């Protein structure tokens, strides 16, 4: 039994999410501009673990008094299926994207019982000239680079209580209006700590189903939600639907994902109707994929 909020139908369904491992990393630089550049590059090609190895994004910007070196910074989150799976991702992303970025430094962005290497591999770029400074429980590596030193903390925390795949599907009759609404929802979600929306601009247009007719494809287009296939497949869409956009949310905790979905839903229902949004639903696989179920009705 669906519910209607401000003229938008909210399906009686749930978003199905699954357990992941997640870590946080703080990237600082001489200016917010350069911290953001390093963070954006380090989280690039990080949309879906299916093809990227990790789901990554910027959690939030940090003022100088929130960072370990008193400079502007950005906290990024990286999610994968296990702590071990995150190791090569961190090594490559920090080594290729943060070490190389002018003026950057890199620190633990998550306190957790378990930790994972952050500067353990990039320090070897120092070719023996790297030195360490241990302050309290943290060890910082100083790697000589051409604009001074790249400072990187040896380890960062990792949690296995993270959640990937929280989602909202926005259905509507105006593609441009739908995109505006989805953007507003992403902006609202960005205000919630400990979550990211890893897809481009936080929005996915290629919602997927599990498996495909082609060998080697783990996922393929979610034909039931493709408007152009309406009438030729068992469609989930009504006759007036022109487009569907999805927002996918990863969080360090289940509560953070629920809070983010709540914030996103509010943004959608507050202004979506006048932009052509007709319905909100969520992606699930009948409860067979993941242990985390976020019922839309409980979040509105």
């Amino acid at each position, binding site marked *: 039994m669906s519910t209607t909020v401000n003229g938008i139908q909210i399906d009686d369904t749930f978003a199905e999410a699954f357990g992941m491992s997640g870590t946080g990393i703080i990237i600082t630089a001489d200016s917010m501009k350069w911290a953001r550049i390093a963070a954006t590059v380090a989280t690039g090609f990080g949309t879906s673990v299916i093809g990227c190895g990790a789901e990554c994004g910027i959690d939030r910007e940090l003022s100088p008094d929130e960072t370990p*070196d*008193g400079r502007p910074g950005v906290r990024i989150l990286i999610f994968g299926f296990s702590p071990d799976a995150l190791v090569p991702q961190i090594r490559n992303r920090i080594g290729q994207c943060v070490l190389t970025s002018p003026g950057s*430094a890199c620190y633990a962005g998550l306190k957790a019982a378990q930790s994972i290497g952050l500067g353990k591999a990039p320090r070897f770029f120092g070719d023996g000239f790297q030195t360490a*400074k241990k*302050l309290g429980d943290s060890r*910082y590596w100083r790697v000589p680079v051409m604009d001074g030193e790249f400072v990187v903390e040896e380890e960062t925390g990792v949690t296995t209580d993270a959640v990937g795949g929280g989602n909202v599907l926005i259905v509507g009759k105006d593609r441009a209006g739908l995109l505006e609404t989805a953007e507003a929802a992403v902006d609202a979600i960005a205000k919630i700590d400990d979550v990211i929306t890893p897809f481009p601009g936080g929005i996915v247009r290629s919602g997927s189903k599990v498996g495909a007719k082609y060998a080697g494809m783990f996922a393929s287009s979610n034909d039931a939600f493709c408007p152009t296939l309406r009438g030729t497949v068992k469609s989930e869409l009504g006759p007036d639907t022109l487009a569907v956009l999805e927002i996918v949310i990863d969080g360090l905790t289940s509560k953070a994902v629920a809070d983010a979905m709540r914030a996103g839903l509010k943004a959608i229902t507050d202004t979506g109707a006048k932009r052509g949004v007709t319905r909100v639903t969520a992606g699930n696989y009948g409860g067979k994929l993941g242990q985390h179920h976020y019922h839309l009705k409980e979040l509105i």
Partner: protein
Amino acid sequence: MSGLTLRLKAPANERINLSGITPGRLAALSAHEIARLNVGFDKVGLPLGDAFDVSGSAGETLTIEGSGAQLDYAGSELDSGTLRIVGNTGAYTARRMSGGKLEIRGNAGDFLASGMTGGIIHVSGNAGNSAGGFIPGDRFGMLGGIAVIEGNVGMRVGEKMRRGTIIVRGKTGEGAGSRMIGGTIWAEGGIGPRPGLMMRRGTLIGPSVEELLPTFADCGKHDLVITRVLSCYLKSVLGDLAPKPMPLFVQKIGGDLATIGRGEILLPAS
């Protein structure tokens, strides 16, 4: 002042061994047991109750009053709580301290913080030779924690120091950081002559250095992020006790090139 207080009955005419006299250990003992603890060095021994008046109730804080330079090993093995010493201490103060806070309202003798691995020391006066240094039989000097000394320190502060931070509000004596392996010595009043002899790694920071060894090389003027990290860390742990941050640019002097040369002396860049 709450907690347990030990007040020296009379100026000590023999050396007193305060090894292991910590708030945590005394909290687990009865008043009778505390009075029977041996604080002497020789075979005869010296019951704590004969040397000190004991008052208050044991807990997180222990205060020792009327102390003097005869009191050795004060705060040694301290791992939690607060130990306040009103007066001077002798040698080996905070030996192998691993946690908690040690406040000395006076001067500390030689070998302050030798083998220390954690916690915070605050000395309101001076410290003797080899603060944070090693003693024969040990492999390293200080191994962690923070020592803040409001006055000056003697010779060879931080000798063979491996980790931790020593902040000296005054000046260091000759040979600061000799054979240093790691850690940081920050002398706000200036670094004494010939620091860092045979140092492998580690950092000496100060506004000036009296005389450099010829095996140190000027590496030029730099904006080092690690000095900001260090300042932020010390501010977060020490609050008002933290040293004033270094200016943006520092002059790095690398050495000792007679060894692997990964050590550094950082001075404000002119």
